[in-house]
């Protein structure tokens, strides 16, 4: 995961959650407030209905008192009380009641005896005033009375003759939902009698309201909507009757919520967008210096160099610190690399010296071979890597002679065939010694193959021509030359000219015919530079000087840089 991505996610996600959470909370709060407002307005409506109704009731009660003093009615009541068995007496009173109903336009009139047993009554039914079946009617003193599908709101008053109560008059009006501005329903002992909510069957309403307490406010779910139901306590309908308003909060608050939702959607998306942009900017400002730093490191990885970073390139303290510490680390590594290189070179040098020191006749042999080989390699435009390979490889080319007995190596006189075979093993031994050390892998070819001949008669493999690497071919020539020009216990060394002649004679058979003339030129130049020692073999620069000339960086395997950084 990229640092910028990580920064973005860490800043944006909590921010987004925070925003969404707070918007959600605000939305809920507003919704709650809207509902509360609705609820209180509903309560207000109820209160005003109750006020109107109580005024009405007061008026009605006065009117009822007057009606109770109706002399005709009293006469009728007395008649019916006097003739309780007679149908025409009831008929007479019903006739009177009908007339009162027409005049006062009430929907329900009933006279009862002082004990409350109905005597005669009429009620409005489809705009007709019909006589009641008094045997089946038991009206409440005050409250709701259902007859057929209709509900009448009934109020009663005593009819007194002087001090004596002679009966009760009940006056009723058809109970009309249209008086209520809010949808309402009328229930009796849990059964819905009437409802002004369109489209929902009464049973469904009843089952939804089952959880509501008789005289308390409650919220119900109906067809996926929330309804608030308030009992209209101000109107008494009698035992078991409850009139409740039932209004959908959802449908009432829907328009407000729709607006809210739009506002919050726009505000929320805007805020999220802003948060996103801020997060992107933030992550970029954090990530950019690091990115620059990383690209610098990449560059140094590609080149294998450990350059100094400009600490001032970044304005951020941490990045500057990082650059500085990287610079310090780089410097330390460079220093270590130099030390390592020195140690290595010293090691190789001392190894070569140790080898040469076994025999005073071969003293300086490895060094000389290395110098000349380098010169040749330089002349044939070898790369610096090849140059390095040749220089070290030439220094080590006779390392295998460590494994060959001094008796053979330092034997004065010609070697027997067996002894020669032993000597011929030294390239293979040398290879075996060095192949265990990783750093010497590059030089194995020179160590193993510096006795292969151009025509394939050499050892140990008998390779032909170009099959032998260039370094090995060069070292072969220089080795032969140095051997010929060196003194031996049993002979004096050849002169330079003789040795060159031998090389020329064997060019194309034993030696690479292209390198021999080059070598000749190089030795001639060296002799010309130092005329004082012209008779002898040319003395070249010391190993150390030459080694120093080699590019330091080239000595260290490339992979090291990448691994260490």
């Amino acid at each position: 995961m990229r640092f910028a991505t990580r920064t973005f996610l860490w800043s944006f996600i909590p921010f987004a959650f925070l925003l969404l959470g707070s918007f959600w909370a605000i939305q809920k709060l507003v919704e709650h407030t809207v509902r509360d407002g609705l609820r209180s307005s509903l309560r207000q409506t109820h209160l005003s209905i109750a006020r109107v109704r109580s005024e009405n009731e007061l008026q009605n009660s006065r009117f009822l008192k007057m009606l109770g003093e109706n002399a005709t009615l009293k006469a009728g009541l007395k008649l019916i009380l006097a003739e309780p068995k007679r149908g025409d007496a009831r008929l007479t009173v019903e006739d009177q009641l009908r007339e009162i109903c027409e005049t006062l336009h009430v929907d329900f009139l009933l006279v009862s005896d002082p004990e409350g047993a109905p005597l005669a009554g009429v009620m409005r039914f489809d705009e007709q005033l019909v006589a009641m079946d008094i045997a089946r009617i038991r009206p409440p003193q005050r409250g709701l009375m259902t007859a057929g599908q209709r509900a009448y709101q009934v109020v009663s008053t005593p009819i007194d003759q002087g001090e004596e109560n002679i009966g009760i008059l009940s006056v009723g009006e058809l109970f009309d939902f249209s008086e209520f501005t809010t949808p309402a329903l009328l229930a009796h002992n849990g059964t819905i009698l009437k409802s002004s909510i369109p489209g929902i069957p009464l049973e469904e309403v009843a089952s939804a309201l089952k959880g509501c307490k008789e005289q308390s406010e409650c919220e119900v779910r109906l067809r996926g909507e929330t309804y608030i139901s308030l009992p209209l306590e101000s109107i008494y309908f009698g035992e078991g009757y409850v009139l409740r308003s039932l209004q959908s909060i959802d449908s009432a608050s829907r328009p407000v919520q729709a607006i809210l939702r739009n506002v919050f959607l726009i505000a929320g998306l805007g805020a999220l967008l802003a948060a996103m942009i801020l997060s992107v900017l933030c992550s970029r400002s954090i990530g950019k210096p690091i990115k620059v730093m990383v690209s610098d490191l990449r560059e140094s990885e590609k080149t294998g160099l450990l350059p100094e970073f400009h600490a001032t390139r970044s304005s951020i303290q941490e990045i500057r610190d990082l650059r500085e510490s990287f610079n310090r680390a780089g410097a330390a590594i460079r220093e270590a690399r130099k030390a390592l290189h020195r140690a290595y070179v010293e090691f190789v040098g001392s190894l070569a010296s140790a080898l040469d020191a076994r025999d005073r006749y071969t003293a300086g042999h490895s060094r000389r071979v290395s110098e000349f080989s380098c010169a040749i390699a330089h002349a044939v435009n070898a790369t610096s890597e090849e140059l390095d390979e040749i220089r070290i490889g030439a220094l080590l080319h006779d390392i295998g002679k460590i494994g060959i007995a001094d008796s053979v190596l330092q034997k004065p006189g010609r070697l027997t065939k067996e002894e020669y075979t032993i000597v011929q093993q030294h390239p293979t031994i040398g290879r075996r010694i060095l192949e265990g050390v990783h750093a010497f892998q590059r030089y194995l070819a020179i160590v193993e193959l510096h006795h292969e001949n151009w025509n394939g008669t050499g050892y140990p493999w008998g390779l032909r021509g170009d099959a032998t690497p260039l370094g090995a071919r060069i070292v072969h020539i220089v080795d032969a030359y140095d051997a010929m020009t060196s003194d031996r216990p049993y002979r004096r060394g050849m002169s330079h000219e003789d040795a060159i002649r031998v090389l020329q004679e064997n060019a194309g058979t034993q030696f690479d015919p292209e390198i021999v003339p080059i070598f000749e030129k190089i030795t001639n130049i060296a002799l010309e530079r130092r005329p004082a020692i012209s008779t002898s073999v040319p003395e070249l620069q010391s190993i150390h000087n030459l080694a120093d000339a080699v590019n330091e960086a080239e000595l260290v395997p490339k992979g090291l840089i990448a691994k260490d950084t």
Partner: protein
Amino acid sequence: MFLSVVGLSTVRAADVEGMVKIQHKLTKHRVTAPTSSYERGAAVRLASDHADDPLTFERMRVVIYLEGQLASDPLTATMEQKNRMFIPDTLVIPAGSTVSFPNLDPIFHNVFSLSKPKTFDLGNYPKDHTRTITFSKPGIVYVDCHLHPNMAAVIVVTPNQWSAKADAAGRIVLAGVPPGSYTVVAWHRAAGFFRQTIRVAENRANIVSFVIPLEENGAMAVAQR
């Protein structure tokens, strides 16, 4: 005002004729429905005026009689209770007559009066029952029903046998009045009493005419009820 004629039996009788002229409608008859009916918007049958000309209605309820203790011939009359009405609603009888009040409605009715000449209450009685009562004192007797406040009738008990109701045209005839000076009384329930003196003579027209009520400036108006 008591100009009585003596020796009626020896004198030949003559007819008193005349006209009653009604100036305008006198009886208040409700023809509109109660206000609440209109508010409610229900169809109501409006009470209508009498089918006849209103003035004819009024004329037919004018009673003419002679004042004074003259010969009386009691009779038996009937005032029915039918369709929640007294029929007839105006009855003229000489003092001492008996009136029967049969109930022809399927409901109970009650007949009572609180008038001075005769205070009575016949009680409640059902269909096909009747009750009778004798009116011995002359005067105006208003008859009502306890059970039906809209039912009202009037019985005019006259002091003698000369009494009549005007006909539809307003003509009045008191037949066989012995010659002499009399006070002729015209009475209407709403307008009250109207009196005129007349000298009744044989072999000539004895004309009396009433204008009810009096002209606006005729001062006397509805006195002495």
